[in-house]
């Protein structure tokens, strides 16, 4: 019959079924849903931006200024001393005795005390820089450490330059660069945004899709199970990376966030953000799979995110934590995302110069996905 033939033809038409097209329709639907959900906007964009504004302004009007001093025993007759005192962020206090310096550091009136020691001829390293900071002011300490770290690495490069050139290093001129508080704050907030988008955005939505049988209804259509998850992951990647673009954009244009190597730095930050998001999506899926119902999502998700939020260097570098706490921080995936983002933003590192951070993040990803797949629940 005619009708029968028509059905046959329809069947042939759907025979060229494309899982990719089906996946994209999930991605499209999911993106629409995310954008219309206020909590995803709040966690991914609003909170990080509020922190950026608050910390950006608290931190002495955008650019960080520190009062630093040198001990009388410091060997100041060298280029390193000169490099340190020319850092724009450092205001060198003078005419104080060592005792006065110490007591002012304790009171918080001085932010750091330096002591340069020169090793005897032939012993390397030639110079040792000791830094004393106030543990009660972790955000300042971590900035000072980062800035001096940069000074030393530039100093090392300039020394190499003085050697007969075996190879010529063309150095990007960063001298006189002003390190701003936002340069330090923004990468941590970006990490936080990615963590919350990955974990909260996924765990809640996925469990509610499961509980409301939305996913089961999808199963009755020809899309493969894995493509449903892929479609969801893709939409979150798009959303979160757009969020990163907005955060970096606002940070750069409104608050003067420094992109050391311009667009290249921006791209590197996005690439690392994407890797971080993929890892944290895995945590989100895992949480949605081990949670019994939607009410058990918040405690589990908070248990995963809150310690990382506090201890993984979101607000200040983990170097300032007490030594017993540091191993805990060093075990957290967010630490490495934050470190990588900060090194890109602060030191001009690239994805090719961060093997340690990216490797550890990847290992975390593998472990997380192993368990997420193992515990995966469709119904």
């Amino acid at each position, binding site marked *: 019959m005619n009708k029968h033939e028509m059905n046959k033809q329809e069947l042939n038409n759907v025979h060229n079924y*494309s899982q990719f097209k089906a996946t994209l329709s999930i991605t499209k*639907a999911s993106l629409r849903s995310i954008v219309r959900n206020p909590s995803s906007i709040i966690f991914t964009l609003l909170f990080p931006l509020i922190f950026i504004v608050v910390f950006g302004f608290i931190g002495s009007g955008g650019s960080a200024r520190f009062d630093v001093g040198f001990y009388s025993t410091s060997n100041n007759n060298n280029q390193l001393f000169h490099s340190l005192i020319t850092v724009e962020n450092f205001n060198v206090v003078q005419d104080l005795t060592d005792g006065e310096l110490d007591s002012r550091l304790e009171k918080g009136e001085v932010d750091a005390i330096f002591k340069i020691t020169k090793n005897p001829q032939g012993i390397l390293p030639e110079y040792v820089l000791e830094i004393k900071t106030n543990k009660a002011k972790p955000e300042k300490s971590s900035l000072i450490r980062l800035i001096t770290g940069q000074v030393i690495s530039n100093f090392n490069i300039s020394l190499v330059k003085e050697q007969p050139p075996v190879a010529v290093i063309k150095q990007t001129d960063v001298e006189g660069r002003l390190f701003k508080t936002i340069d330090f704050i923004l990468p941590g907030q970006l990490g936080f945004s990615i963590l919350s988008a990955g974990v909260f955005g996924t765990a809640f939505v996925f469990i509610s899709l499961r509980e409301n049988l939305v996913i089961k209804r999808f199963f009755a259509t020809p899309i493969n199970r894995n493509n449903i998850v892929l479609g969801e992951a893709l939409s979150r990647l798009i959303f979160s990376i757009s969020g990163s673009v907005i955060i970096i954009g606002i940070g750069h244009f409104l608050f003067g966030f420094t992109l050391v190597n311009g667009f290249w730095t921006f791209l590197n930050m996005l690439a690392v953000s994407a890797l971080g998001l993929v890892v944290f999506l895995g945590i989100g899926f895992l949480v949605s799979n081990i949670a019994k119902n939607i009410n058990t999502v918040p405690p589990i998700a908070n248990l995963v995110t809150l310690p990382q939020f506090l201890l993984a260097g979101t607000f200040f570098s983990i170097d300032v934590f007490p030594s017993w706490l540091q191993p805990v921080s060093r075990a957290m995936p967010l630490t490495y995302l934050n470190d990588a983002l900060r090194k890109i933003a602060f030191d001009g590192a690239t994805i090719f110069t961060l093997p340690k951070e990216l490797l550890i993040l990847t290992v975390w990803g593998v472990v997380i996905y192993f368990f997420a797949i193992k515990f995966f629940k469709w119904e």
Partner: protein
Amino acid sequence: MISQKKIIEVKNLVKKYDDLTAVNDISFDVYEGEIFGLLGPNGAGKTTTLEIMETLREQTSGEVLVDGLSVTTQKNQVKKIIGVQLQQSGFYPNLTLFELIKLFAGLYNIETDAMEVLELVGLKEKAKAIYKTLSGGQKQRFAVATTIINKPKIVFLDEPTTGLDPQARRNLWELIQNIRDTGSTVVLTTHYMDEAEKLCDRVGIVDSGKIIQLDTPGNLIDNLLAKGFTREEKLKHASLEDVFIHLTGKDLRDE
């Protein structure tokens, strides 16, 4: 009117959960173009049977062929030619009905006029509404709309009218009959006798995981009468529901 071409063949179907046998050796056929009802009390095994036919559940033993395709080994081909309404399914949050229809069209890889689909189920004016804000009857009609997007050969409806008021039920019956009239076979479950009687061409009565009778509603009643059954009450020529519909009219009340 109904052809004798088998479009679904269920053979010796068994489904066991741990120590519970939900479906216990069920066999039946569904013919092309009919409205087939699985009738039974809650927990009789209707939904389990239906979900195995829909490829959503694996049977313990036995076989189901849908248009000659095995639900075990040819799942994806089966999914392309069926439409499924689950007993309580929700839909993707924060999307309008229009966007949801487009989503399902994408999942089937077809182009569809979403407005036309919504018009078929009387929800054209609700195209921009969110699923959650719909009334019970509208939700069910929308769930039915998602089953016809791919112009399926068979539509499965699991208790489509449960929880609806009489007007919404009648409206849904009409919709189901329209779907059948456009060439699809309909398989539904219900625990309402009047629904089975008015809507279904044939019904299988399921109890404790078995089909205990299978025939047209008319034959089932005739067989019972032939055994000498009479109602205890004297039969009236109208039911209370007839009174209700007569008084309140057939128009939908859920808007």
